[in-house]
């Protein structure tokens, strides 16, 4: 199914393959970011409406306390407004940029607050099983997500869980070792080997 974004494509787009549809989607976000860089409030609001549900999903996952997640989302969008000038549409995926801004804000918040306990155990939570809960994930767009999941699945279970927990909870090596009850050296070795395996898998 073609999403609205396909409309930004030039005539003939109905015959376009998924790649050009994605390119059109990417270009639309890039145009919004460029307008935001120019101080365009309307573009900023449109960007917010298009992306805030996904970015807030990331905030909520990383910071289960709702108020903190809201604070971080606010900080992230203020940063997006301020830093949009530093984003060059010709050079980077807007998604990469937006996700990195949000995760950085979330990690900073987690660091500032120090170690914390979670009420909800999400450590080993995998990707969402229920595709129906992600109606917006287009089949062709899921490919990239599948790729990282496929590569994650090449890791041993405990190591994969360690990477996932680190990614979502922003735990330091020390906190992660304590959480998983493994020696610090072992944990560092797990994470580093896992990261190198992921690099080989994703780049291959």
């Amino acid at each position, binding site marked *: 199914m*073609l*999403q*609205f974004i396909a*409309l930004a494509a030039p005539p003939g787009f*109905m015959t376009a393959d*998924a790649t050009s549809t*994605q*390119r059109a*989607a990417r270009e639309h976000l890039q145009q919004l970011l*460029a307008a935001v860089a*120019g*101080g365009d*409030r*309307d573009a900023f609001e*449109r960007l917010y*409406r298009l992306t*805030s549900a*996904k970015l*807030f*999903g990331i905030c*909520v*996952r990383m910071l289960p306390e709702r108020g903190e*997640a*809201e604070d971080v*989302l*606010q900080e992230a969008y*203020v*940063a997006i*407004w*301020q830093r949009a*000038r530093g*984003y*060059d549409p010709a*050079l*980077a*995926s807007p*998604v*990469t940029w*937006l*996700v990195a801004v949000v*995760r950085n804000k979330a*990690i900073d918040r*987690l660091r500032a607050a120090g170690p914390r306990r979670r009420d909800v155990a999400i450590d080993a939570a995998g990707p969402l099983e229920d595709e129906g809960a*992600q109606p*917006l994930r287009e089949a062709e*767009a899921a*490919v990239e*997500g599948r790729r990282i*999941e496929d590569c994650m699945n090449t890791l041993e279970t405990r190591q994969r869980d360690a990477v996932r927990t*680190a990614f979502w909870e*922003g*735990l*330091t*090596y*020390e906190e992660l070792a304590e959480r998983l009850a493994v020696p610090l050296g072992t944990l*560092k*070795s797990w994470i*580093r080997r896992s990261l190198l395996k*992921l*690099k080989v898998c994703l780049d291959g």
Partner: protein
Amino acid sequence: MAETTDIPEGMQTELLAAEYVLGVLDPHARRGVEARLPGDAALAAAVAMWNQRLGALALDVPDATPPAWLWARIVDALPLSAAAPPSRTRSGPAPAGFWDSLAFWRTLAGGALAAAVIAFVAPWRPAPEIEPPVAVAPAPAAVPAHAAALVQDDGRGGYTATLDHDHRLRVSPAADPPHSDTQVPELWLIPEGQAPISLGVIAQDTTTELTLPSDVVPLLSAPTVLAVTWEPPGGAPQGVATGPVVAVGALFDL
């Protein structure tokens, strides 16, 4: 700083970047990486690549709708006191911060995550009011100047459109028109190479007649496509289409 034991030779920078992006560095090491980034192109490039690699993990998370008041809070928090808005030209003095560094983002080679862009396309909130064009019975036709056959994805007819010399546009559904109980069809005009322009919501079952806005008429000198999308009742919010394409066709001269 990360330990260097157990790390393959030549991989220290790579791993430090990966650890930074993953988020396992302690605050001191984390700040250390950020301090190095503006002057260390190799490290910055590695961080950019890891943002791209690991960022895809974040897209598996379910969407969550932020509370409606949060937008107002964000607007309030924007630094408006600055003397001038950000420059569109980027010709001013470069900001010093790492995140503002164009060089950093320049290191991103391409879009491993581009394919995931569409996952970001969220439906808009309930629509602001858009005045719908009036649905009318088929009018005695003026002499049409242009026409378009809008076909559906499966090749079946969706709508036909005619445009006369007075810029009256008539859009009629096919015999077995696309139908939705929950959404409304909205008509778009897409001059080649330009963003879609909303012509408003049209009727599902009968001919809709409207006059092209005068600022749109000059755009017809370029090859132009008409398209219909499904939109929430009231039409696409703020003139940006959100729904799937129902039918599309090129406007041609008669």
